[in-house]
């Protein structure tokens, strides 16, 4: 996975930090917030964090059919942030997006498939066309029960009839981010203890 992330010009640390930062805003939501807010807030702020990280490295903000993304310098890699279902970050489970997606995702999947086919059919001479843009989804799922956020960077390859992305040509699962984490164990040595002051008798009293 690391080599794939390297190839894309990304890092596990950068992706995890972006998710961790953005998800903090979701923790601030309550039952009094509108239902739609946590989802929008989470993906919106994670998108912001991804851009805060990558734009200084030469990536660009992009928007296709109202879908925000972050695109690398030569336009071949696009990152879109989305909430995933409980299978996010779990190998072998049926991963899907948490909400239905629209035409932008449909178009991105189409581009991804073209890119894949171009890779497969390497015997065919390449036409001088613009390099296909491959879209990766940065998916996150907040698992309250396990007190963790699971994250993966996966390439969507199919949407179902309801608009949920349900198939993936590649999944890169990151280490889960633990919240409410027991602080990394503090050993006795780490505490600042006062030296035991000497309490010295001035004189011996007769008893």
């Amino acid at each position, binding site marked *: 996975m690391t080599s794939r992330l390297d190839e894309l010009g990304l890092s596990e640390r950068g992706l995890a930090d972006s998710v961790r930062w953005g998800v903090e805003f979701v923790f601030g939501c*309550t039952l009094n917030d509108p239902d739609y807010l946590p989802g929008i807030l989470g993906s919106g702020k994670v998108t912001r964090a991804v851009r805060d990280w990558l734009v200084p490295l030469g990536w660009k903000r992009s928007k296709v059919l109202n879908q925000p993304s972050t695109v690398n310098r030569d336009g071949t890699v696009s990152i879109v942030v989305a909430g995933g279902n409980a299978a996010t970050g779990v190998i072998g489970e049926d991963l899907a997006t948490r909400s239905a997606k629209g035409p932008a995702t449909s178009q991105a999947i189409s581009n991804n498939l073209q890119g894949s086919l171009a890779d497969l059919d390497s015997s065919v001479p390449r036409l001088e066309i613009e390099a296909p843009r491959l879209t990766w989804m940065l998916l996150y799922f907040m698992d309250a029960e396990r007190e963790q956020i699971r994250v993966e960077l996966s390439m969507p390859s199919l949407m179902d009839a309801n608009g949920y992305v349900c198939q993936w040509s590649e999944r890169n699962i990151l280490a889960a981010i633990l*919240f409410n984490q027991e*602080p990394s164990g503090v050993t006795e040595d780490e505490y600042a*203890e006062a030296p035991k*002051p000497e309490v010295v008798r001035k004189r*011996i009293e007769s*008893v």
Partner: protein
Amino acid sequence: MVITPSRLELARRRNGLTKNDLARLVGVSTRALLAYETGERRPSAETMGKMAEVLGFPEAFFRGPDLEGPPVDAASFRALSRLTAGQRDRALAAGTLALALSDWIESRFELPQPSVPRLRSVDPETAAEYVRAEWSLAERPLGNSIHMLEAHGVRVFSLAEENAEIDAYSFWRSGVPYVFLNTQKTAEHGRMDAAHELGHLVMHWRHETPRGREYEREAEAFASAFLMPRSSITAAAPRGANLDGLIKAKRRWNVSAAALAYRMHVLGMLSDWQYRMVFVELARRGFSRSEPNPIQRETSHVLGAVLGVLRDEGMTKQAIAQELQVPESELDGLIFGLVLMGLEGGGNRSGRDGERPDLRVV
């Protein structure tokens, strides 16, 4: 008979009695009592005997020299507005007895020299960082806060009060800092109180009056920054944590969940909403007066060591009280919650874990 008038007033205040109260209990006029306290008249032996009985002090106490009390203006009380004059006087009278005990101890033991910085016009955050630097604590979580104060020359006593309104108070006397802690609060509360009073000693040492709410806020901010240094919190506190997360995390700094939430809010790590919800949830779970995931109570090293040596020399608590001419119960009050050892009979000798204090007789 000849008495020291100030001692009569002290014993009366320590009992929380007005002049009228005591006069009535003893069966003399208020005017007569006033005259005893100002030294204009001397009580008869019979009256003195009654007064001693009512006040619970041995008669010898009333014949001792004048005792120096804590300076009223210098003593820093939190929740001053909620304290009655009687409550305040009672606590200060206990402070006077503590000073007598402290002087008695210092005449027999070499104690650590005071090394508490006294700063001028410094904000609490900076003051806390300064003290940490002076004491070479870096950003590490603080161990036993009472040991830390004592190692730097602070004389720590227990508030001999069951008054929940008084958390702690502190003052300087002749270059020596004193702190009185209410040891009936939670252990986490006690640590925060110790750091709070240290803040007063460091920042408000010039005995300015009146001591207002602003001073209290500064001491609170100092305590928070002293126990939970900014870089330590930003590095290790769980971001976006709910109450359960705080309850786990607080043990790193040995503070209350509420204190950690406060610090994280100040440092921008909890939103206003999250901060409020922590308190709502604490109340809902019944932690208004107790503390979840509590820490062990902190004790005094110095008092434990002193009393241990005296006991080894055969001096009982009763004998110490007799030398000081105070009721044994007053002595108990001043060390209550700070010393684990039983003065007579078994039990731990030292203030901690049954380990013998490192003492030597010279």
